[in-house]
């Protein structure tokens, strides 16, 4: 294994040039969590339109390249999807996007943003109501 196997160009690209990063005034769903082991931190802001679709998403945070790149990737995945689709999102979707071998410890970094998404969705209005 070489360092470039773990830190592939697309991951470094997301880390250095994160997509959808920054505050999102007027966001209806917000959540934040951190990984106490690393100090990685991810905050997600979501705007949901009348048809239960995530119309806008932004993230803020700090941490390692894996955690921040995966947060950036996650925003590109969930933008435009419906709340039920976002709720159904599984870890493999993120891991496939990252596409690198991860140890158990680094897996926590990779999945932090997905965890924060699920936290944010807990406060979503129930579409079935």
């Amino acid at each position, binding site marked *: 294994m070489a*360092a470039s196997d773990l*830190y592939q160009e697309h991951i*470094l690209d997301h880390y250095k040039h994160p997509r959808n990063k920054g505050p999102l005034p007027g966001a209806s769903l917000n959540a934040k969590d951190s990984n106490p082991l*690393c*100090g990685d931190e991810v905050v997600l802001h979501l705007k949901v339109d009348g048809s239960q679709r995530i119309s806008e998403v932004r993230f803020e945070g700090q*941490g*390692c*390249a*894996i955690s921040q790149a995966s947060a950036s990737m996650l925003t590109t995945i969930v933008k435009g999807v419906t709340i039920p689709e976002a709720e159904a999102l599984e870890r493999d979707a993120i891991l496939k996007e990252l596409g690198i071998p991860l140890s158990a410890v680094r897996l926590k*970094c990779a999945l932090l943003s997905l965890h924060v998404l699920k936290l944010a969705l807990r406060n979503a209005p129930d579409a079935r109501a």
Partner: protein
Amino acid sequence: MAKPAKVLLNVPAVKADFPILQRKIRDKRLVYLDSAATSQKPQQVIDATSDFYSRYNANVHRAIYELGEEATREYEGAREKVAAFIRAKSANEIVFTKSTTESLNLVAYGYGVKGKIEKGDEIVGTVMEHHSNHVPWHFVKDHKGAVLKYVDVTDEGMLKMEQYDELLSKRTKIVTVTLCSNVLGTINPVKEIAKRAHEVGAVCVVDAAQAAPHMPIDVQSLGADFLAFSGHKMLGPTGIGILYGTAEVLEATEPLLGGGEMIREVHLGRASWNDVPYKFEGGTPNIAGVIGLGAAVDYLTKLGMEAVRAHEMEVTQYALDEIRRIKGVTIYGPKDVKRKAGVLAFTIGNAHPHDIASILDVDGICIRSGHHCAQPLMERYDLPATARASFYVYNDLDDVDALMAGIRKVQEVFA
């Protein structure tokens, strides 16, 4: 400053004693630079613990048969070795615990919560302590209403001694300080700190987890009332810690654990305690751990702690010189090796310390990254995390070179 050649270590011979250093990681030589977290173990320590289990395993202190007597002899022999290692007056001043953390909790609970500390009494700590020398004192605050005060650090990582003087008063009952910072490597002037603590009638608690493995310690000269350290950071097994206390303060400390071994007499509803140090060692102790610790003390004593310290100063100086040649790397803590142990905390530009550790790991180089269980210190420097390399008896200048090559690789990845 030229060192007499005889005090330095024969590192190839030392390396050969550590079987794990023969291991390859992804076909690369193992470069172990995380001894501040835990040290590797020489064959002598591994053999001592396995000999106990394979030749004379028995419980200590009460068995009336040969195996039990051998086990007790080795267990108590290790207590004598530890006492000599830190120049304690007597082996009765050595209490075996499971870790530095337990040792410090024993002091905070047995001397603080259950002991002498009263509402409004003050405990002075420092912002550079490990969490294990912060959190136990929170208990004393919460249970007894003690007031906690903290000595700040300078930007270079030294304690602000003039502020320490201002914090001391007749209300100060405990001063607690690390002899060596696990992040910055700073060696604190504990002798002076203890002297000033005693002048106001306070006892001085010393966290020596990072110091005892790496430099000569003389508890009497230091003036430590309590001193805590761990076996696993000084070539010994995990799960064995040491609390040194003077006879006077140990007598004034209540036990943490009630049970077998720690009693003199037990009746329904009441009991009296065994003598110091046995009153603190309730339950069957970590016998193999203590015996392994004894072998570790033998190993270090044979190397000579002056030589260990001199060797680490040489490696650390080389590491400081080399790392300062690399642009874009920030190092934390004192730069003068006379005031610094073999601990090198650093950051590299926009590379997160976890990414640094991952990239080094690819080449078999083990370093630590994160907050190093010292969040108040990280807050003081406004850092989420740092990378940290730490050196020990089996590290040489080649290991430093490997680290520097790894750092350059990190810079290439994050360029």
